[in-house]
């Protein structure tokens, strides 16, 4: 029987070719899908990496920025007569309290480190025997000022005095412009007073004085508005050697404009580390301990004495307060440097075993002392010396503590956050972790995190990485004068 050529079917060659084409097509499809799947997986890993970075960054910043809350207090504003300290400036010698000497001819101004927050004040200074363009300004917060300047140099015969105000311009001189002022004499002392209203003046007003040979006389009484509070002192001299001395202010309150010294409460031990700051860097920069008060509970003044054998303390119920059994508090005495009543600073970590309210104004806490053998959260404790301290109500405040926080690197490269006695993972594949402290209670944190490394590269030179890097200046550790926590 003869078969038609149209019905003979596929030849072996044709089948092999078809199979080869099919195999190539299927292989290409598989490779494409695999590539797609790996790319999608890699995107997922990078996305997870970014989530970790953002999550860890947020948490680190929150912990650093909140460090020391309610555990610090600002440098106290002062009152009375104080010599003026000028802020450091390379053009001036500011090393002597109450003096300012120009070192060169640069156009530069020196700023006082203190300011008068409100009320009346009297600013006093004595120009040096040779004083070129010695301007002294009382400057307000709004930039307005009152200034008195002299030029005196016996060698060139120069001798002039001028009073200048922002609002009125030149109001008095020794050369006939404005009120006539008698020329300067070596040894003269000058004063600018912001004075209280009197029989003639209905508001605070400015008055300029000169003290010559012990006799004080009025140079000029201003009709311009007083520069707005707070006021500080500004000074200018044009020649090297020109100076103003015995620069002082009488006022209250006198606040620091900068260089505040934020005072820390005496802090407890965290594990085996005596904390000296709310942020304590340990392990050569690989870990950090952070301590702060509870953000939702205000610090409260004590009402009763808490001595070594006390188990209860009464405190004034704060506006925002929440005390429960198991909470930890720090009983703080900042100490007292008054020679007539010296008191060493001390603090005692205690755990609340009961809390009650004897009346609407008072909270009574029954406390168990946290010592090395029974620390709060298994880590925070005070020394026996601190627990032996007698905390008098006039000097003692009670601060509810937030659980202490530690950031550290685990052996399997996880960034962990230990809050109280709970260890939590913050990020995986952490390649680098470093904490440092800069002057002025400023801290830097940096960390390098790598992606999971299953679909992305997993060798140290090619792996996908992300970086956390920030600087924190915790508010409670850098308080301005009289600023609350």
């Amino acid at each position, binding site marked *: 029987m003869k078969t038609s050529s149209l019905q003979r079917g596929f030849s072996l060659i044709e089948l092999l070719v078809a199979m080869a084409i099919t195999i190539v097509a299927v292989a290409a499809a598989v490779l494409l899908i695999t590539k797609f799947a790996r790319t999608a997986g890699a995107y997922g890993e990078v996305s997870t990496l970014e989530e*970790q970075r953002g*999550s860890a960054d947020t948490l680190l910043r929150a912990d650093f920025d909140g460090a020391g809350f309610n555990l610090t207090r600002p440098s106290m504003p002062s009152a009375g007569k104080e010599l003026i300290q000028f802020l450091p400036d390379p053009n001036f010698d500011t090393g002597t309290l109450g003096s300012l000497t120009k070192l060169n001819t640069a156009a530069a101004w020196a700023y006082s480190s203190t300011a008068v927050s409100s009320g009346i004040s009297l600013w006093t200074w004595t120009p040096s025997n040779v004083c070129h363009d010695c301007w002294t300004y009382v400057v307000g917060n709004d930039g307005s000022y009152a200034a008195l300047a002299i030029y005196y140099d016996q060698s060139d015969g120069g001798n002039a005095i001028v009073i200048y105000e922002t609002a009125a311009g030149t109001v008095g001189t020794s050369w006939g412009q404005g009120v006539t002022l008698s020329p300067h004499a070596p040894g003269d002392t000058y004063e600018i007073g912001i004075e209280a209203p009197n029989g003639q003046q209905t508001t605070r007003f400015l008055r300029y004085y000169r003290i010559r040979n012990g006799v004080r006389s009025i140079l000029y009484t201003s009709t311009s508005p007083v520069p707005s509070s707070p006021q500080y002192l500004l000074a200018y001299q044009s020649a090297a050697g020109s100076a103003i001395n015995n620069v002082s202010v009488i006022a209250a309150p006198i606040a620091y404009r900068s260089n505040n010294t934020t005072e820390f409460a005496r802090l407890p031990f965290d594990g085996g580390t005596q904390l000296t700051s709310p942020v304590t860097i340990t392990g050569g920069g690989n870990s950090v301990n952070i301590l702060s008060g509870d953000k939702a509970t205000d610090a409260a003044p004590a009402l009763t004495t808490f001595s070594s054998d006390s188990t209860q303390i009464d405190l004034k119920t704060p*506006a925002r307060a929440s005390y429960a059994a198991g909470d930890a508090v720090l009983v703080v005495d900042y100490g007292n440097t008054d020679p007539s009543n010296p008191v060493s600073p001390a603090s005692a970590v205690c755990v609340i075993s009961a809390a009650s309210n004897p009346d609407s104004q008072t909270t009574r806490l029954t406390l168990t002392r946290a010592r090395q053998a029974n620390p709060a959260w298994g880590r925070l404790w005070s020394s026996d010396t601190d627990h032996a301290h007698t905390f008098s109500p006039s000097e003692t405040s009670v601060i509810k503590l937030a659980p202490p926080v530690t950031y550290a690197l685990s052996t399997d490269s996880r960034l962990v956050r230990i809050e109280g006695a*709970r260890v939590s993972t913050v990020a*995986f594949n952490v390649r680098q972790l470093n904490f440092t402290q800069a002057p002025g209670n400023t801290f830097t944190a940096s960390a390098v995190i790598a992606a999971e490394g299953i679909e992305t590269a997993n060798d140290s030179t090619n792996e996908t990485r992300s970086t956390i890097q920030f600087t924190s200046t915790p508010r409670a550790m850098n308080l301005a004068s009289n600023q609350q926590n």
Partner: protein
Amino acid sequence: MELVIVCAIIGVVAAIAFASFANRDEGSRLAQDVASRIRARRAAAIRLNALVQPTLLENYKQPPISIDFINATTTASLVTEGTVPTTFTAPGGLGSTGTWNYVYQGNTLTLPAGWRVATSSSSLSPIPVISLGTPQTVFNFTGDGRLDASSLPTTQSNTNPNQESQFPAIYLTNGRTARAVAVHPSGLTEIWQYDESAGTWKGFSNRSAVVP
């Protein structure tokens, strides 16, 4: 006729392959969906608290922002801005805790056919729980993105960085296999996959949780 039969066979095979391919990893996609909703809620907690946090002169507290996987409505996105956003009602009494008035938008979580949220270790059985992962379906986030204390399982006192503490996790299962999304107290989410052949849970980089 032959051509029609061949086309039909190809169509059936393609449909089966497509359906199989599409559903081959629905557990992982569900876990990703749950994790993304948790992350979104954490971000909303940070955002909302920043918008309405009390000043120093206002004496009230804000409760945490929560997501409840048993109450499907709460799994939709929270509206944080716009004309009708989630708002906060301050309490009447000083020092008290106010309330959030949640406003949601978008899709709620939909479980694939056969999948469910395991609310406890018994409902996950015979699959075991992660040794450190306590089953949980509600997560509450604070203003800085941490899990609120009310969301944390009890755990042994521990300050060793190499030993993790117990963390909450939401478990998803179809009876044969399971996925879990762990929410670490720091707010970090981690997806875990149950390896049926080995009978173990694998987390980030195939790590396993170890109880001391």
